[in-house]
């Protein structure tokens, strides 16, 4: 048995395949055809059923032999994704007719994908570019399987479009509505979010320094700031629309209110983060308030400030989108979501959600990259 190294995912995948074969038909039309051999029905997987079961079994078996890890990962990758592709493409035209075998086969393919990621995670490559590639490939396979399962389940089980459209429909919608999505992004993100984020974070930062410099502000302002942060944004948004009009300025105002407080609190905490010894040191140099602030306290506060910037990057997006529910010109991501829900165009809603998620991730990623460059000295970044 030296040539065999069993993995539970591969074994389970084979077992699921066997159960699926035993159950027989994969879809209702196929079951009807089997029940009545005389009649000629068209049903899914006429030609590919054997191929799919064969692929799963073959990939699972090969993966359990003693081959190099990389080869094992490639075999699993090809097997799992080929089966998934055959499954999803075969069901088209027969949505909602899938039987238990369909889901068993999907689970078997998913187990192979799981095993593939597990094998890849176990690789310890020497070259740095392969490590970087692995760092990207592993989450990509992970994400792909979320989409694959989503697509296969919504189509196989025939989930109503209004409840949850399959990702392929959302993708098609994004591709066909690029100009609309582009205009919404420009309105919501490039105007309201960026402006509100910069002004809100900047105001929080400056207020924190003022509160640090002027003791009465520290005592009076911080509790009030605390209360402002507790304001329910849903309640504030319509008032901001009344004050600043329907266009992006009122959304920027909501974003400012939302981002102000995290920055204030984090900066105040960060300014207290430098050690006594370091502050005594600056005192022995007869360093003034501003010099100590610039050379010691702000650099020491940088990790806190970046924390606030990261929190704010997602808060700003949420704030701007929600604020648009309360009145906008006929453009904007929040406006589109609220109107398209009313028109039952759920795929457009999902398209906006996908774009917002992408924009939010990019925003967060950029802030995180700048953070790494600025706070390279912090133990959490330099790793030790």
């Amino acid at each position, binding site marked *: 048995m030296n040539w065999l190294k069993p993995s539970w995912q591969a074994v389970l995948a084979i077992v699921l395949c066997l159960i699926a074969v035993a159950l027989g038909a994969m879809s209702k039309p196929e079951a009807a055809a089997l029940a009545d051999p005389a009649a000629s029905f068209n049903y899914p997987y006429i030609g590919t059923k054997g191929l799919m079961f064969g692929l799963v079994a073959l990939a699972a078996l090969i993966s359990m032999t003693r081959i190099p890890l990389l080869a094992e990962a490639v075999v699993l990758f090809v097997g799992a994704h080929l089966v998934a592709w055959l499954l999803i493409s075969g069901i088209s035209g027969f949505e909602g007719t899938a039987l238990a075998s369909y889901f068993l086969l999907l689970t078997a393919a998913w187990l192979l994908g799981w095993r593939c990621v597990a094998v890849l995670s176990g690789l310890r490559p020497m070259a740095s570019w392969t490590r970087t590639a692995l760092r990207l490939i592993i989450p990509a396979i992970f994400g792909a399987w979320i989409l694959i399962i989503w697509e296969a389940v919504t189509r196989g089980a025939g989930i109503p479009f209004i409840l949850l459209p399959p990702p392929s429909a959302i993708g098609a919608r994004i591709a066909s509505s690029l100009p609309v999505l582009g205009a919404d992004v420009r309105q919501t993100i490039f105007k309201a979010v960026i402006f509100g984020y910069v002004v809100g974070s900047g105001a929080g930062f400056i207020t924190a320094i003022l509160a640090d410099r002027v003791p009465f502000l520290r005592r009076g302002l911080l509790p009030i700031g605390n209360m402002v942060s507790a304001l329910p944004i849903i309640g504030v948004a319509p008032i901001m629309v009344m004050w600043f009009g329907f266009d992006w300025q009122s959304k920027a105002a909501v974003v400012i209110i939302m981002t102000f407080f995290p920055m204030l609190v984090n900066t105040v905490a960060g300014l207290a983060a430098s*050690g006594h*010894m370091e502050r005594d040191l600056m005192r022995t*140099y007869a360093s003034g308030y501003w010099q100590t602030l610039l050379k010691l306290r702000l650099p020491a506060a940088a990790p806190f400030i970046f924390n606030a910037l990261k929190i704010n990057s997602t808060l700003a997006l949420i704030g701007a989108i929600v604020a648009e529910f309360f009145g906008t010109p006929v453009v904007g991501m929040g406006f589109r979501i609220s109107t398209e829900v009313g028109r039952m165009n759920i795929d457009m809603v999902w398209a906006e959600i996908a774009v917002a998620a992408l924009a939010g991730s990019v925003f967060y990623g950029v802030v995180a990259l700048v953070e790494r460059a600025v706070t390279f000295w912090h133990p959490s970044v330099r790793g030790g």
Partner: protein
Amino acid sequence: MTGTSPAVVSASKLGLTFQTNDGPVQALSNVDLTIGKREFVSFIGPSGCGKTTLLRVIADLEKPTSGTISVNGMTPEQAREKRAYGYVFQAAALFPWRTIERNVGLPLEIMGLSKAEQAQRIKRTLDLVNLSGFEKKYPWQLSGGMQQRASIARALAFDADLLLMDEPFGALDEIVRDHLNEQLLELWGSTNKTICFVTHSIPEAVYLSTRIVVMSPRPGRVSDVIESTLPKERPLDIRETPEFLAIAARVRDGLRAGHSYDD
């Protein structure tokens, strides 16, 4: 006791009482002390005897509550404003976001020296503590001993005549400590500095000092002052000579006397 040269530090009837939640704590009481130019004075005593507090009063990091003290003939605050002293803390306290050379240059930046003057002083002081070649490293890339040497270089960089050192080698191992002690003596011999050095190690105090101030706790006070009779040239093995051991024994007796009423 320092003859004709004017006193660098002169304290009389100095006292400091901290107000804590458990009531007042007398950290210093009735301290009379004069330190002359080019002296190397060690303060030794058990923890809580006020040796660090005394150093911090000289540095104007604490305010005395009674008595008088002058540094270079001024109040400690004026002396601090004039940057009359360099202070070395128990830990290196280097800024992790600055390279070694920029850490050493920190006080020079604050003083507003020209770039050229800064570069020249950084080079000179890093040479002095044998850290040439590590200018571009960050503090966390260096060993503890090297970090402490960098912090000494930083204190030397702005060229004050008075160097205050608060247990600078307390956290280092014996071998590194010996080495740094030797270097410190060399440095003191080659420059014109007055050094106040807080320690709780008897051999370190005896090896380095021209005068040893023994302190005792509750309340913190000076219990003995011992003049060293050792020559200025002190190789490490001077620590085995009978003369060295005799001084060490006196220091130990002084410390014991201060402890006598304690359990």
